[in-house]
């Protein structure tokens, strides 16, 4: 069976959920090998094994400690050259895509980005599904040349455990001249809070310009907490400074595909729809009956969000007794 390389996304050894999704997808194509860069591999090996990693390549060099892209490319290119993998899977994050881009050029391999699903064809080769043109088309594609390099969106599949005891292999990588040409001057980590991450949440409650003020986002948060949801925002709300940019849903924000998406005070501009219209169920609250968001809504309330949302939270509490 072909070896499938999975680039591990982690924070100091704590593996992030998208990596477990990649390992789950990798098992459809062959034997997953995790590529772990930086310190903390010991802590991560167990969880990588739980999700099926047969091997963990560890590159713990000062060059990768700051997680710049080029050292990761050097590492992956070198490991790929010696292991001849059936595919390389990376998360569709900013760093993941940039790593994939450089790697594809270096390996002269085809690149597919933002896959929402991967299956194996009869020869075990990856066939991807992508959602394109603002999520109006579903496209299947495959790589025709080289080692397929594929980035996968978060939430593409549910992580499934498949316990294995991975072989750990330390790798010494020779870093190229561009590995250190980009420096991180400062890094301000995002404070997570208790709510689920936007990309990983089953339910997302988003507010738009209709929320009309940063303090009013408490109404959106209250509904989110009642539904165990992540909070999203339109660009208009973000630009007004009412909610952090990291919560922007849409073409140039995060693209989400939850079971339930609630849009409150959001008109439904094409750029916003691009980031949410693959949600399973869509609910909208808007005081304008002609708002385009209603064209997508499975259920819509034409009304004032300041009345509808608090009543909804109250009624959910009542129903839960």
């Amino acid at each position, binding site marked *: 069976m072909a070896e499938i390389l999975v680039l591990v996304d982690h924070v100091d050894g704590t593996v992030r959920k998208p990596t477990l999704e990649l390992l789950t997808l990798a098992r459809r194509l062959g034997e997953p090998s995790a590529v772990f860069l930086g310190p903390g591999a010991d802590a991560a090996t167990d969880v990588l094994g739980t999700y099926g990693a047969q091997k963990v390549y560890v590159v713990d060099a000062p060059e990768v400690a700051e997680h710049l892209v080029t050292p990761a490319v050097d590492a992956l290119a070198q490991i790929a050259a010696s292991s001849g993998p059936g595919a390389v899977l990376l998360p569709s994050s900013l760093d993941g895509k940039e790593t994939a881009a450089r790697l594809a050029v270096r390996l002269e391999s085809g690149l597919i980005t933002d896959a929402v699903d991967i299956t194996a064809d009869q020869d075990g080769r990856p066939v991807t599904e992508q959602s394109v043109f603002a999520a109006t088309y579903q496209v299947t594609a495959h790589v025709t040349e080289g080692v397929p390099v594929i980035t996968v969106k978060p939430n593409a599949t549910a992580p499934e455990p498949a316990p294995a005891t991975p072989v750990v292999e330390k790798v010494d990588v020779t870093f190229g001249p561009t590995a250190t040409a*980009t420096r991180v001057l400062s890094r301000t980590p995002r404070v997570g809070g208790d709510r689920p991450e936007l990309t990983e949440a089953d339910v997302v409650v988003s507010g738009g310009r209709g929320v009309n003020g940063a303090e009013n986002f408490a109404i959106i948060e209250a509904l989110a907490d009642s539904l165990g949801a992540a909070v999203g925002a339109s660009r208009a709300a973000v630009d007004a400074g009412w909610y952090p940019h990291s919560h922007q849903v849409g073409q140039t924000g995060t693209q989400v595909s939850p079971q339930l998406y609630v849009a409150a005070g959001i008109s439904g501009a094409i750029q916003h729809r691009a980031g949410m219209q693959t949600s399973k169920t869509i609910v909208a609250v808007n005081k304008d009956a002609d708002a385009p968001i209603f064209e997508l809504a499975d259920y819509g*309330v034409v009304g004032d969000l300041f009345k509808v949302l608090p009543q909804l939270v109250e009624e959910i509490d009542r129903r839960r007794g």
Partner: protein
Amino acid sequence: MKIVVCVKHVPDATADRTFTEDGTTDRDAVDSVLSELDEYAVEQALRLTESGVDAEVTYLTVGPDDAKDALRKSLAMGGDRAIHVSDDDIRGSDALGTSLVLAKAIERHGFDLVVCGMASTDGSMGVVPAMLAERLGVPAVTHLDELAVSAEDGSVTGRREGESATVRIQGTLPAVVSVTDRSGDARYPSFKGIMAAKKKPVETLDLTDLDIEPEWTGGSAARSAVDTTAKRPPRTKGEIVADEGAGGVGLAAFLTAKKFV
């Protein structure tokens, strides 16, 4: 210094875009425009020159004949000159092929800084800037919502809001950067700008001019292939109710029926 801004001509994202039978974008179905996200790249390049960086701004596009429109629109916003790479053998290129053509044209022209948009509004892969950096052997400083260039110490510095952290990154020149739609609103071309653009030089190049063999680009050289394209069925409009005092209660009932409560 030499600044090259990469601008892509794309099917209008606000219209209904479709595919042709061979899985490539149907360019005749809707009007094409300058990719909206590249307007921010143009804006940043112009702001750099206005902030005192002594630079010549050249726009570069790879695309069919009418891609010249994207160059004219950019030139109308400001800047000095443009390069249009067009060749039948480029049709159907993947990101690798496109980045090869762009990189060869950039090398031929010479550069200190390449400015790109964060992603096109059609393929929207967001990988071409990093591919260019790889091909040109220079740093990539991407997805910036703030950008500063220092010609004296030969560096480019920017701020990027990533998924888990906000980082300030610095690269040495020459470099490739990409900027987001938060980097600063793009200007509208003035009437004077539109008139001036007509006189600015636009050089047209083909693959021969760039020493690129025809078999290196285009659909036949693409290293990935589309198997199927299917339009998502439009979402059916659901139940829309006017709030007459019990809108929240009705919504709770819907969410309960759907098992979210």
